[in-house]
């Protein structure tokens, strides 16, 4: 089975404060970047299939030059090769991204049995590129894949995560597009040495312009805003010791600790 896995380079914002600049843009320049966490699970899921039953994994990324680094990571994990579809500006419209990718796949005649994506990207949380891409390629689709129970030539039996601890088991015919949910596996550890070694594997670079670039987007960000205020917490301040005593006082008052 030949699997294409889409990976994305995203800023690591979990522990960082995000600021909107005077010109309305987001300043991401100080942030560390990394592979979208959901894509780690997608790469791992693809590798486990080909390691068991043969085939190959190609990592693809759509983004600027720097995005090469996530291809390096995917190759260090075990992907056979990497393709960079170079697009200097961020495309916020998932339709524009999916359209560009589908044009690229069609024009370059890239063969595959399955396309894997992460369920969403950590930065924009659209969770939409996989589904749009599947429709554009006229292929069956499933999102929220939390288990891959069987794989054969005809397709796969997968489990989709629904809400509240329920899964839906479905059969999907190949070729297909699957969006992989986090927690489906434990992505393998990648060493610095592994990433260095991966850098010797040549990556093919394609210019997005040749496939229509961003095209004319269907949606557009007008501006960035901070989250709506909801009242907010009473903040505890002071020395660590006194804050911890205050905190224990609250637990006592609520009757959960004596």
């Amino acid at each position: 089975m030949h699997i294409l896995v889409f990976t994305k380079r995203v800023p690591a914002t979990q522990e960082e404060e995000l600021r909107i600049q005077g010109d309305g843009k987001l300043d991401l320049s100080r942030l560390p970047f990394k592979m979208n966490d959901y894509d780690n699970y997608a790469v791992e899921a693809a590798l486990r299939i080909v390691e068991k039953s043969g085939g190959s994994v190609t990592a693809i990324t759509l983004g600027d030059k720097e995005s090469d680094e996530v291809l390096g990571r995917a190759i260090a994990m075990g992907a056979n090769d990497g393709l960079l579809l170079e697009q200097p500006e961020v495309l916020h419209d998932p339709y524009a991204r999916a359209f560009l990718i589908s044009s690229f796949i069609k024009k370059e005649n890239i063969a595959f049995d399955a396309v894997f994506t992460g369920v969403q990207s950590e930065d924009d949380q659209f969770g939409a590129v996989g589904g749009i891409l599947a429709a554009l390629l006229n292929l069956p689709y499933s999102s929220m894949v939390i288990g891959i129970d069987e794989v054969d030539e005809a397709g796969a039996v997968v489990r989709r995560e629904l809400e509240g601890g329920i899964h839906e088991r479905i059969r999907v015919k190949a070729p297909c597009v699957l969006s992989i949910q986090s927690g489906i596996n434990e992505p393998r550890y990648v060493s610095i040495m592994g990433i260095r070694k991966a850098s010797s594997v040549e990556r093919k670079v394609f210019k997005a312009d040749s496939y229509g670039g961003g095209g004319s987007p269907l949606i557009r960000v007008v501006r960035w805003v901070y989250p709506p205020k909801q009242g907010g917490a009473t903040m505890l301040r002071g020395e660590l010791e006194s804050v911890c005593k205050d905190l224990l006082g609250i637990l006592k008052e609520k009757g959960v600790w004596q």
Partner: protein
Amino acid sequence: MSYTLVVAEVRRGVFEERNMDSFGISTLLGKDIYLVVPDGSSGPGEMFASRVITVRTGEEIFSNPLNIKGIVEQIMSENGKPSCIVFTHSSSGMECAAYLAGAFGFPLITDISGFDKEKNIFLKSYYSDKIFGEFEFRADKTLVLTVRSGSFRKSAVVKGAAAAVDVIENIAISGDRTFIEYVEEEQAGIDITKADFLLSIGRGAGSKDEVPEYEELADLLNAVLSGSRPVIDKAWLPKSRQVGISGKTVKPKVYLAMGISGAFHHMAGMKDSECIIAVNKDSNAPIFESAHYGFVGDIHKVRDKLKAIVKEATVHKG
């Protein structure tokens, strides 16, 4: 007169409560509301929609993106193109909305939580709710939306007149993706929904090696240890301890969140707790907006200090 099409989410016979948010945004959009549902349950749909279209098929076939495409195609050929198609932002809503947008070349905005009617702009979360984007869209095309649960239900307005009723008897059922069965996740270990006091840890806990330290604190405080999605994905805690949309919904007396930033899918599972206390090193973490008490600081230091104080108090009591 154009209309807004609400695609219902029905799961195991239940008309999901988050459909109310779809009615809410549709009410704000101001067009006639058409509701499409599978056989069985249209819930309170008749009260909010001016037309209810029942598809003579089960929910398993209905909530399959490949089949939804054909269903919407039939509705459009009978009624013309809607100005907007609304889904819940759920496992099924997300995949059906994206597939539909791709199939028809419609603009799509997912996980919307706000709408400015005057500017015709939608609000959507970025970066785990740390920043929101205001989106405009190509107004000459049908807009596809998925709606964040809890965001719009208060705007839903009950209609005076009875809803018209339509039935779609036959649809093309795709053989490329077929339903097999529902599976319940295995339930093992402690039931966190029964705890009065949850100590919950997030990504900020740093590594699996730190988890026993939090277990010890939970024991000292007579709390039960739970976690957010990343903690369960990384196997630091078992699945049965997960709080959030895809885990458990909890309402303890006290929810002490340490190193949890408070993204929506987590908050939805614990926002009704009687008292939420949040400790996080990021002063802008969204959890501080919904928490009752907050402290900005290093969670490991808070943990160790709490342990020291509690241990000392126990010694003094003898």
